[in-house]
């Protein structure tokens, strides 16, 4: 062999592992077992070394000592080889052992995929992982003898930019959410992934969220998880950690989650919450889920009838409540009793100086916290409401929004995405 063939644009990992390791003169020294990459940097992870077998001993070969890599093997830059045992450095993973054949998060499709092949390319002066093959071809290549296999082109290529591997089984690496890839997903998508993954993989995602500094995101993901998974992932965590998540959750979702625990644990968690949150959640816990009190959210905007539409809009802008709770502001009259809600659209449409009192068209029948669900649904349908106030002893205690009613009214089979006989 006098000259090396021109390097092909993409190399397949399994076409390199198992090939011979040669010294600078081309004499075989041993075998290439695995490739080591460093994760964590932005961009395509670079190859930092090789795991090779020389004289039946497994050793580490740093990438600086390699002159050539190809399907014909790995060649050293010198004739000499100093062998060191392999120790993982932080962030390093073995491609074949830790990534190939395992689950990965496809961030673009928000689903779990399996790497049938790992694709390498020479980018900006280094060999890097550029993507994985999740298609059938990648798998077929590995099943066929090498001579036939190398003719098979890449099938379902997935760029590394849209891939996040699970690395929980690797002691030195942790999945991190500060990594922009996971944070790109919607909380509901992250929740779907957690539900689809095995427990330890789900745990890995949840832990990554916990270590990131986006508390809201973590709480949002918990809100989107189904009951079973909520409990599954929250059970093992300390009360303080749970309390931290709960404070960032919507009060009614937090109440639903707390209801899953026994009295002792629930009280312990409640005790760690800020007083305001605690009172809200505790009052929600007392209501039946099939009644107005169980459907309502304790967060709303309540204003005096004397104020103007402009004031109300300013109030809405200032509020950090989620938008579904801001579909209407509620108005109380001189007697302090709640009159009705004024839809936000109405506030925009009217003259800025109009008083809220003048915008209330008619008094609504009062909803008590123990009003049955049918009454709530009927009232909201009859009066075309997107939000209805719940009143206890003349004091407004919560607002029911249309999305809560809609959720409760979903027929059994519809809640799950699939199945006629499906249940919750």
């Amino acid at each position, binding site marked *: 062999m006098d000259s090396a063939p021109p390097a092909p644009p993409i190399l397949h990992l399994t076409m390199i592992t198992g090939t011979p390791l040669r010294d600078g003169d081309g004499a075989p020294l041993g075998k290439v077992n695995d490739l080591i990459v460093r994760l964590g940097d932005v961009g395509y992870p670079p190859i930092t070394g090789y795991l090779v077998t020389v004289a039946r001993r497994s050793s580490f070969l740093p990438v600086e000592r390699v002159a050539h890599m190809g399907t014909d093997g790995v060649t050293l830059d010198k004739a000499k080889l100093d062998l060191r045992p392999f120790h993982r450095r932080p962030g390093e993973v073995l491609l074949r052992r830790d990534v190939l*054949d395992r689950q990965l998060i496809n961030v673009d499709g928000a689903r779990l995929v399996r790497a049938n092949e790992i694709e390498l390319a020479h980018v900006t002066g280094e060999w890097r992982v550029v993507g994985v093959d999740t298609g059938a071809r990648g798998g077929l290549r590995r099943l066929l003898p090498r001579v036939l296999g190398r003719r098979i082109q890449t099938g379902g290529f997935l760029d590394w930019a849209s891939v996040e591997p699970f690395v929980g089984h690797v002691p030195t690496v942790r999945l991190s959410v500060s990594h922009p890839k996971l944070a790109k997903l919607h909380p509901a998508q992250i929740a779907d992934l957690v539900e689809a993954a095995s427990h330890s993989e789900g745990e890995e995602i949840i832990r990554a969220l916990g270590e990131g500094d986006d508390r809201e995101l973590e709480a949002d993901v918990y809100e989107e998880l189904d009951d079973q998974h909520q409990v599954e992932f929250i059970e093992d965590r300390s009360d303080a950690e749970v309390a931290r998540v709960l404070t960032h959750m919507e009060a009614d979702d937090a109440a639903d989650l707390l209801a899953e625990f026994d009295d002792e644990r629930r009280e312990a968690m409640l005790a760690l919450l800020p007083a305001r949150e605690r009172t809200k959640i505790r009052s929600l816990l007392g209501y039946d889920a099939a009644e107005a009190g169980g459907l309502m959210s304790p967060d709303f905007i309540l204003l005096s009838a004397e104020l103007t539409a402009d004031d109300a809009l300013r109030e809405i802008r200032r509020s950090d409540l989620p938008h579904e709770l801001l579909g209407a502001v509620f108005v109380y009259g001189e007697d302090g009793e709640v009159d009705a809600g004024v839809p936000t659209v109405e506030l925009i449409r009217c003259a800025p100086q109009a008083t809220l009192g003048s915008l209330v068209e008619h008094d609504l029948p009062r909803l008590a916290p123990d009003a049955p669900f049918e009454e709530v649904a009927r009232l909201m349908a009859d009066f075309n409401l997107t939000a209805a106030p719940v009143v206890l002893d003349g004091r407004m205690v919560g607002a029911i929004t249309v999305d809560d009613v809609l959720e409760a009214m979903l027929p059994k089979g519809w809640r799950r995405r699939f199945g006629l006989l499906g249940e919750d």
Partner: protein
Amino acid sequence: MPVRVPPPIRRVRAGLRGRPRLPARLSPRRSRLFLLLGLLGPGLIAANAGNEAGGIATYSQVGAKYGYGLLWMMVIITLSLAVVQMLAARMGVVTGKGLAELIREEYGLRWSVFATTSVVVANVGICISDFVGVSAALGLAGVPTQVTAPLAGLGVWLIIVRGSYKSAERVFIWFTIPFFAYPIAAILAHPHWGAVGHSIIAPHIHTNSQYLLLFIATAGTTITPYMQLYLQSAIVERGTRVEELGHEQADAVSGAIFANVIASFIIIATGATLFTHGVHSIHSAADAARALRPVAGRYAEVLFGVGLFGASLLACAILPIATSYVVAESLGYEKGIGRGRSEAPVFVSMITGMIGVAMIVAMIPGIPVISLLVAVQVVNGVLLPINLFFIWRLAHSEEVMGPRRTGPALNGVAGVTVLFTSMLSVLLVGATVFGFV
């Protein structure tokens, strides 16, 4: 503050008013009944699916040929099955991954593709024999195969593809009710219970080749690879938490015991009737039912028919599921009972295709079920030792199971079981292919 209404009353009230039933926020999560019902799960289903048409034929053969003479070995086989199933359940709970998935992650694509291919081949074969079994059971009542097979196929398909995992599991548990036909048949056959007890504790071993062959064939039909594959994947789909590990293992063990007690009753029933009347040659489960009629009366035929029907129908459902789980897991496709075609195309097509193929082949008149089962036996016999070896190693692996890997004692027991079962398996393959023993 509103008065809290006790949940049962609320439920009744809700029912009367036609209100959507919403779970109360503060309802007790689990009742004792639920815990008890938790014992009836995938473990029971997996092991009982093994009492399908081929199994019943083998057990009937054992009873007809040697009376109670081989009952003692059911004890050994039960122990082995219980250990193996327990390990599979344990891995399912702890890792949240199917066996095929773990094999691929730890031992590479080639092994998992090898296992998958053998599972597909063997399971299609068993599935055909079970559609034949369902048809034969109703055939005893005069219903033609051309009616039974399509109906059974459609029914099973609907349960799997249109239901959810929970609803399917519930239906499968109902499928185990017909198994009670066998104990009843055994009791009505008036066996000499003293002799039955004696042959269980005091093994009398013959050394003729027929006896040995029947022994290993029985072991082969009782411990089949799809049981572990189904059990582990079903537990994953159930989403069992580690705290419920004990339950799931209890389910696996009790399921194995229940299945083999039923199998023993088949041996007792045929031993008390066919053996004592000198009917020694039985070729299929329906054969056994027919042969029972002149010696034990019409009721025996009906009971055997009912048992065969339920057992085969259960297997007709479990085999396509187990196969599709394995294919989806090892090749990395979406899976899940009740998923639609758009969500898990490979999984659903696999189930549909397998039911369709098995159903159509079963309708071919004069299909050689016996030779089919022999071929299946060989494939399963090759696969089982490999499967068991992986289960044994994976369950003990620190990397896979973490602190819940099997301890030295259980690992030792598992090792012996795997070795023993694999040996029988290899013997069976040798006997079928090369005709030795």
